[in-house]
């Protein structure tokens, strides 16, 4: 269903400042289509900040991101799927309604594929408010399949997932990379996904 992506992503001389303090500076990396980046480092070193900078929520203290490829004319924020600590699940709506909204809003459309991706199809008509923490997490991750976007920004995606679901997530990331997608993941859980690069924040500034 999703077309193969041809986007490459470059970060040049990125710096981040929070409350007058420099979290990191001089970050550089290039991701070719199918490339994955693992962001690691202790708490408070700016893993979440970096992902939120790429998604366009946080301003850059210096440097710039650029994307090259077929969809390069689109703003970078609109090339990204951002799955952060919060699940963006509306408790008053059913699982299907939640995903249908995002499929519509993010201009995707593969609702059934999204329901199947993390095995939520049997729960489709249940209200999202009744889901367990792990199931809500899966609902948030299913959003990745509700609309095709080349860059996945995953901030601790495995939190509150069981072992089987982590495997599924691992496979989903690998499938995305195989299609030429890009994944930038911050996680403490070892994944089978082969990360082309690792960015260790907090020790030395450059990767």
């Amino acid at each position, binding site marked *: 269903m999703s077309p193969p992506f041809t986007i490459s992503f470059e970060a040049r001389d990125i710096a981040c*400042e*929070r*409350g*007058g*303090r*420099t979290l990191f500076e001089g970050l550089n990396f290039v991701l070719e289509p199918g490339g994955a980046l693992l962001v690691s480092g*202790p*708490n*408070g*070193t700016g893993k979440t900040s970096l992902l939120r900078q790429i998604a366009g929520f946080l301003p850059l203290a210096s440097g710039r991101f650029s994307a090259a490829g077929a969809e390069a004319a689109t703003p970078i924020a609109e090339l990204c799927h951002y799955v952060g600590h919060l699940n963006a699940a509306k408790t008053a709506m059913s699982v299907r309604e939640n995903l249908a909204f995002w499929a519509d809003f993010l201009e995707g459309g593969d609702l059934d594929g999204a329901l199947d991706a993390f095995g939520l199809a049997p729960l489709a008509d249940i209200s999202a408010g009744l889901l367990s923490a792990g199931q809500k997490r899966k609902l948030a991750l299913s959003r990745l399949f509700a609309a095709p976007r080349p860059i996945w920004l995953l901030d601790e995606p495995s939190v509150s997932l069981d072992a089987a679901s982590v495997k599924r997530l691992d496979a989903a990331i690998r499938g995305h990379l195989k299609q030429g997608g890009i994944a930038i993941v911050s996680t403490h859980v070892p994944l089978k996904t082969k990360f082309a690069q690792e960015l260790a924040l*907090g020790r030395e500034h450059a990767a």
Partner: protein
Amino acid sequence: MISLANPTRFLSLVGAVVPWLTAVVVILLGTGLYLSFFVAPPDYQQGETVRIMFIHVPAAWLALFGYSLIAIAALGTLIWRHPLADVAAKTAAPIGATFTFIALVTGSLWGKPMWGTYWVWDARLTSMLVLFLLYLGLIALWQAIEEPGRAGRAAAILALVGVINVPIIKFSVDWWNTLHQPASVFRPGGPTIDPSLLTPLFVMAAAFTALFVLLHLIAMRAEILRRRVRALQQTQVARAAMAEA
């Protein structure tokens, strides 16, 4: 620490200016008070109470001046992202609010012998009161948001929304006043003012303006230093976290 490079130059400038400005304020304020209370003749209609005007009118002028200053600084925060703009806006708010309060109190004191009651819903006083509420909202917003950057931008947005609204509020209050109170009340600072009263008024206006600038510079200096302390503490916290890891 890059963003504080410019404030450093500002700090040394403040250090050089403050003693001179203090002298100017003392001289102007002394002259102004002397002129207002001993030289200016009592008004044939209002008697000695006219002297309240020498405080009231400059305070009202600075109340508006303070809000305009905040609005201009808000543009500086949102468009040019200048680090000093937010400091200037944040520190101007309590000073402007104080002058607004002085204008309200002196207006009501002046109103007591004129109107026979401490508070009249006169158009000018009412507009001043709403302006005071706008100041309070700004100050509360700055207090409520912990992170200075976010607080500064939120307050800047509110200040710009407020400055668009100030003329509309003024217009609506004037409208409301003529609706309920057709007879026009005495207007302080109107065109019929006697020249013998004008000189002390101008001197007092200059003195109050200089006082505003002096207080503002001192408050800005304190705010810059407070932010530096905060940034240093945060760096320490981060170092401690890294040492643990």
